[in-house]
């Protein structure tokens, strides 16, 4: 059996993270602060995608970190910590949206054409501009779009999480993509 040794630096970082998480679980505000400042950009970027504007993203961020601190004791050090933080953030975002603005996702059984997988030219449209266009999507479209395109959830997983039918998820996603394409094309005109 080959045992792979972790590089020394990685071991040190791992230990530091262990300690930080342990301190957080003990209720150390200093440790929680450190986690906040280390991951605030990651969390905020996710919140921006799920929210309609910056103020809402701020509120969502706060909720996400409260979730993170609360659930830290359940983190099993499997997979990357940043990945875990993102998952918790998405969960917090969904809960936030459900509470603030019930996702209006009407069941739509219309058969839609398959998603167009044609190539998309690289443009110089900045990330911030695309973010704004995503934020302009209706809440339901935006959520489904983020969960599938960005988080990689399957349609069935999304359907279960949002308590809607899988066909609704597909149609919402398709509409979101279409609307986003149209907006980007108009923007580029």
């Amino acid at each position, binding site marked *: 059996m080959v045992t792979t040794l972790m590089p020394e630096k990685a071991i040190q970082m791992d230990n530091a993270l262990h300690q930080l998480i342990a301190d957080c679980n003990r*209720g150390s505000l200093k440790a929680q602060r450190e986690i906040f400042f280390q991951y*605030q950009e990651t969390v905020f970027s996710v919140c921006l995608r799920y929210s309609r504007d910056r103020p809402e993203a701020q509120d969502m961020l706060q909720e996400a970190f409260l979730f993170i601190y609360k659930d830290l004791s359940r983190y099993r050090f499997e997979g990357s910590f940043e990945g875990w933080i993102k998952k918790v953030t998405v969960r917090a975002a969904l809960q936030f949206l459900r509470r603030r603005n019930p996702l209006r996702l009407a069941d739509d059984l219309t058969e839609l054409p398959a998603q167009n997988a044609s190539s998309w030219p690289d443009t110089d449209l900045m990330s911030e501009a695309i*973010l704004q266009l995503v934020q302009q999507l209706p809440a339901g479209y935006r959520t489904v779009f983020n969960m599938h395109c960005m988080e990689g959830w399957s349609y069935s997983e999304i359907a279960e999480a949002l308590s809607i039918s899988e066909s609704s998820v597909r149609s919402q996603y398709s509409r979101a993509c279409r609307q986003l394409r149209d907006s980007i094309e108009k923007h580029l005109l």
Partner: protein
Amino acid sequence: MNFEQYIRQQLQQLRSKPDADAWEQLARIQQRRNRWRKFKKYAFLTSPLVAATLLLWWWWHPASPSVPAAAPLAHEAYMPEAAPVLPVSESRNSATAAVQPPWLRHNSVPLSQQRFLAEDGITFYDEASNCTVSIPPNVLVNAGGQPVSGPVDFFFRTYRTVEDMLAADIPMHYSDERGDFFFNSGGMFDVAVSQNGAEVFMRPETTYEVRFSPVKELTNASLFYYNEKENGWDYVSDRAFSNQKEGNAVYDQLNDRPSALPPVSTEQTVAKENRASIASQCTPPVPVWVEEAQPEQVFTKGIQVGMELASGKRNIPQWFARHPGAEDAFFSSVADQGEVVITKANDLGIQFFPQDTRHNYTELEAFSQCYFIQTGDSITPYSEKETSASASVLDIFKHTHSWKSIVIQPDGGPDCLIRLGGEDGVIRIHARLVSKTPPEQVFNHYLKLRKERLAQLQQEIDDLRKFITVAPVFQEDKEWCMTPEEWIVYFNEHRALMRTRYEQAAQNSNNSAPAVARQQLEEWRKKAIQMRRDRAVQLAQTLAPSLQSAAVLRLMGFGLFNCDQIFRLEQKPVYANVTFHSASGQVLAPASVKMIDYRTRMLLTFSGKSTIPVMPNRRMTVLVVDSKGKVYQLPEQEYAAQSVNIREHIDFVVNDVTDRVRTPEGWADLLQM
């Protein structure tokens, strides 16, 4: 790369930081959770120790006064160790300071006490309140109903002003089957008797007498008694104070036949009678503008504006007349209001333009040759209420819906965000400007017009503030009793008088060199401060009218009694959930919440501690006392600014004023009522 990959790649590159205060806000909430977490963790470990300590305390604690031990009758044995021995041959009613029993109410309001022999009785006269208490001989019993004899300690306290009642921290509200009411007090008195630290009572079917002079003439005042067990007031009688007017000055609780429920007064009556009671105590506000660099300019401007208002060249707008003491933030939301409607540009349906039918938002003329189209289904509601009405702009056309405010924010090129505010909250419409003139030019023109309009509004507010600040210098005594809102009404009703007054003032100020004007202002300021100090001293002295108007009350028990009107607010307020934060961000756990209405001089207390009424049109200050007795204040300007946008939940940051209000005089100085 396909579309999804492209979007994913772009969004994954996004790196954005939240606002700088994000951590601070989060820490406030998380700190509380951390404390609870630590408590849960350590409580488990320490609970056996805590339980053992409690058990030990319970076993060691002496027997409660309700089951008194049989005490020997020798006088020396009655004296607690700490108190000096009182020989029988000395004055029976010596004012030796007795040890205050722990069950006696403790606060900073002065307490009178006297020792007497139970078999002799006592007639005690309190000079400060002009009250007399007479306890007959041989009427005292202990908790077990056994007669008490020998030295007993008499304690007496009165609460005569709002400041006394604040210092006492006693709730001033009442409930019965009709609902909740506020108290308007004509004064309270508290009588207690103890022997050797144990509470002593009146023998059943006997009475003692209190001659009490209410500080105000109140119609429909009733007598109330404070139930210590229930921490609330019990109604005793509506005849305790009404008998005086009928010629029978004695109220006898033993033979009383009160009405089933106390009569209710109107808020208007309460306000009128409150103001009448303090007419002789009015003082002018202390001007603070002399601390500015050029107060003489404030003075000159104040007179000039006064002249213009008195002569009718300009008018005081309603939004200022109702809240002259408000802050800029309040004015910018209340004054800066219109009646904005979204109008269809043509029958195409999706083209629209905003119009203000009240013509406040004059900057909208920049769009007179343009129209807007919305970009996508882009209504973004702000409040949950608006969620249910999150229809598209097209639906808004179907309803006669008007908005109070509008701000148009350019968003690059022809795009913009139109923010409409109303009673239900704020909605935001993403829109695109359609115009023959380049959109940037149109937006720049709009922003310029808006800036000019707001600058004019600010100038008007500043001018009016200077006018109000300078006004007391020229007012007569009776005008000092008025609140600024009342005085503005008075000003408008006496234009001729004001014209003469301000003409004279203008002439004098024109003839004065700036240095002379500054000196005169400083003299006026010192005079105003001295008047307020004199009033604070007066508060400590007697306020009672003569004995002839005293109520004679024959009462069956000792305790805290109150002479009150009960009333409700005329305009039923909206109640909002509130959280109080200290300046350091700590969330407070209030033990009591009070509000003072400066206009009507009413003290309002509430049974709930996490909801308060939101009344935008009133000058109110909010006072919070926490479980440790620390006192916090929300000044009236901040209450007024917050309450403009009525929301379900409001966060208030309150100032710690504990050290300023250790005495009733301290309260008077803080509140400057």
